[in-house]
């Protein structure tokens, strides 16, 4: 059924369709509508779940870990500072092999306070072992909730679903939603092989020395690698049942393209328009949308970018002391397999600054203007008057 809804509510209805049994969350702008709508669905009996309204995000993640360990399907949602507070427990969910799903609304990290979108909150959880999927539309947000549970429960790892603050969270779009009855074939009830049960008393997570810990980490690594194929299968099956697919990455007009622009999140939608315009003007550019960030789709990136003339990457994030995080990951994927194409790394849109068609055109012009990058990192749109004020 098609409904007009904001991205946050698309999450809530995805959770309802997934028949989540335990929810725990703490409110933070711009995530609040997710938990408000879930509270209403629980209160109205439209979702049979326990909602534990905790006193912090750290406790929210701990509670869903407990619920998942007891064998229930569990969900939490947060943003920015809340995700950072959860950090310790993200590692815990991974190590305990619990497939909880977390929706993170990308929001800049303070100080100074800023409630608008950028990716530093989620990308700084890069090495926790949580899967990460970045969404572009509210439809993709709804669909990805179901995909996240399907993938996570097959590899027994937690999954983070990421959506941009305001551009998705608070923007209404048409979303084709369905309920649990239609979802069940795609997402059967969660039945873990092991869970906390007095019938089968076991200790989970007790002290483990160098003789065993190493292999436990190796198994997480392997299951993360396996998650790439599992995510592809989850997307194929989703298309078979519901007629929509996203890929773990998506190519847009890459046929015959010399230069590929790489984006993630809602910048992608703007970039599609710019690519169309540049193509019409006879410039051989294409687009690669990064949807799955962890595990990193190394082979897909090599396949799409291999043999091109140049690549330009837009990062709505900054790794201080290094550069854009997606750019670093893409360089790393291309290195050592004979691909020496010039990579132009652009920072844009941090703290919710608009990434307009003109910004993307400027990025493509810079990429076109020299054979090799002239800077390690290009910061687009830095205001000189702001800088001179700051250095006074």
């Amino acid at each position, binding site marked *: 059924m098609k409904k007009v809804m904001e991205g946050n509510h698309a999450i809530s209805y995805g959770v309802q369709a997934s028949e989540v049994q335990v929810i725990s969350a703490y409110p933070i702008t711009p995530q609040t509508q997710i938990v408000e709508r879930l509270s209403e669905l629980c209160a109205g009996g439209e979702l049979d779940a326990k909602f534990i309204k905790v006193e912090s995000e750290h406790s929210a993640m701990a509670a869903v870990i407990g619920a998942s360990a007891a064998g*229930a399907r569990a969900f939490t949602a947060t943003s920015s500072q809340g995700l950072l507070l959860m950090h310790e427990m993200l590692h815990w969910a991974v190590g305990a092999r619990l497939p909880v799903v977390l929706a993170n609304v990308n929001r800049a990290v303070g100080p100074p306070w800023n409630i608008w979108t950028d990716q530093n909150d989620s990308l700084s959880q890069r090495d926790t072992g949580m899967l990460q999927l970045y969404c572009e539309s509210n439809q993709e947000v709804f669909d990805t909730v179901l995909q996240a549970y399907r993938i996570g429960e097959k590899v027994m790892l937690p999954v983070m679903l990421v959506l941009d603050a305001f551009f998705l969270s608070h923007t209404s779009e048409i979303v084709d939603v369905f309920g649990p009855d239609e979802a069940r074939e795609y997402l059967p009830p969660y039945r873990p092989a092991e869970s906390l049960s007095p019938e089968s008393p076991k200790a989970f*997570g007790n002290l483990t020395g160098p003789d065993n810990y190493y292999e436990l980490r190796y198994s997480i690594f392997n299951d993360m690698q396996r998650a790439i194929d599992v995510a592809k299968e989850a997307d194929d099956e989703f298309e078979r049942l519901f007629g929509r697919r996203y890929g773990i990455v998506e190519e847009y007009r890459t046929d015959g393209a010399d230069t590929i622009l790489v984006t993630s999140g809602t910048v992608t939608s703007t970039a599609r328009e710019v690519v169309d315009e540049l193509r019409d003007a006879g410039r051989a550019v294409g687009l690669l949308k990064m949807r799955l960030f962890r595990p990193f789709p190394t082979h897909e990136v090599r396949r799409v970018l291999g043999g091109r003339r140049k690549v330009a990457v837009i990062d709505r994030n900054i790794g201080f002391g290094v550069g854009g995080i997606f750019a670093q990951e893409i360089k790393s994927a291309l290195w050592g397999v004979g691909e020496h194409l010039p990579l132009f790394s652009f920072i844009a849109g941090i703290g919710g600054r608009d990434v307009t068609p003109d910004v993307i055109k400027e990025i493509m012009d810079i990429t076109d203007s020299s054979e090799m990058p002239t800077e390690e990192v290009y910061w687009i749109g830095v205001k000189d008057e702001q800088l001179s004020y700051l250095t006074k």
Partner: protein
Amino acid sequence: MSNYHISQNELMTSGHLACQGCGATQAMRFALKALGSRTVMVMPACCWSVIDGPFPHTAVQIPIFHTAFETAASTASGVKAGLQMRGDHETTVVAWAGDGGTFDIGLQALSGAAERNEDIIFVCYDNEAYMNTGVQRSSATPLGAWTTTTPYPHLKSRPKKRMLDILVAHGIPYIATASVAYPDDLVQKFYTARKISGMRFIHVFAPCPTGWKSPPEITVELARLAVETRLFPLLEVTDGKYYRVWKDLPKRPVRDYIKLQGRFSRMGDEEIDRIEQEVEERWQELLQRETLREMKTSS
């Protein structure tokens, strides 16, 4: 309480990794006799995360979920909700934390769970310092005590946090203090707690010979002295209001307790007298609360 029959069934096994004379180990053994096998335990970082034994061993015959230091109460809340959603409404969920995981780093999550009246039993086995990491002070460490982070002459300069009052302020259904020197009473209190639904808090006094610099063979004697000196009164509080204080025990001077422990070896007579006075004031205050709102029903 004298008629209570303690189960002969041992859910705690030999082969655990506790120090000699460990009070926390006795606390677990007695608690499990009342809790029974339909129990799931959530354990944050504490001595017991080591005592239970390394992978693939465990020293208790109930499921244990080890969790991060500050999350005993929040993880236990999730476990209870998860079990209920799977149709298991019988299993007792217990958070089993040390004083650090209760008084300090775990206090926020504990307060949250208490305010929500989660259907769990939160147990604090209190050995009055961070013993697992090698005897550092916690907010449960008493005034004047030596620890590795309160070395002489910078001995603990503040009194022990009044945890009981914090829990009372949450108005939860059941609070009790218990001691490993009174196993029949301890078992009875866990049995009482098990039959109540909602948030229950049991504060178990558990001496630590390693950290207190006391001979391992006097653990039970120290635990008894803590009660008889009224440093650690045995009591119950229901609904955050109604008190029952164990009064019919002999009164011993605080000095008898202090003098047996190396951690108090620098404590002078004047300081001991001040502590005695403070203990008496606290005791009178407790009796007044009990007089004001005495527990009517026998539990």
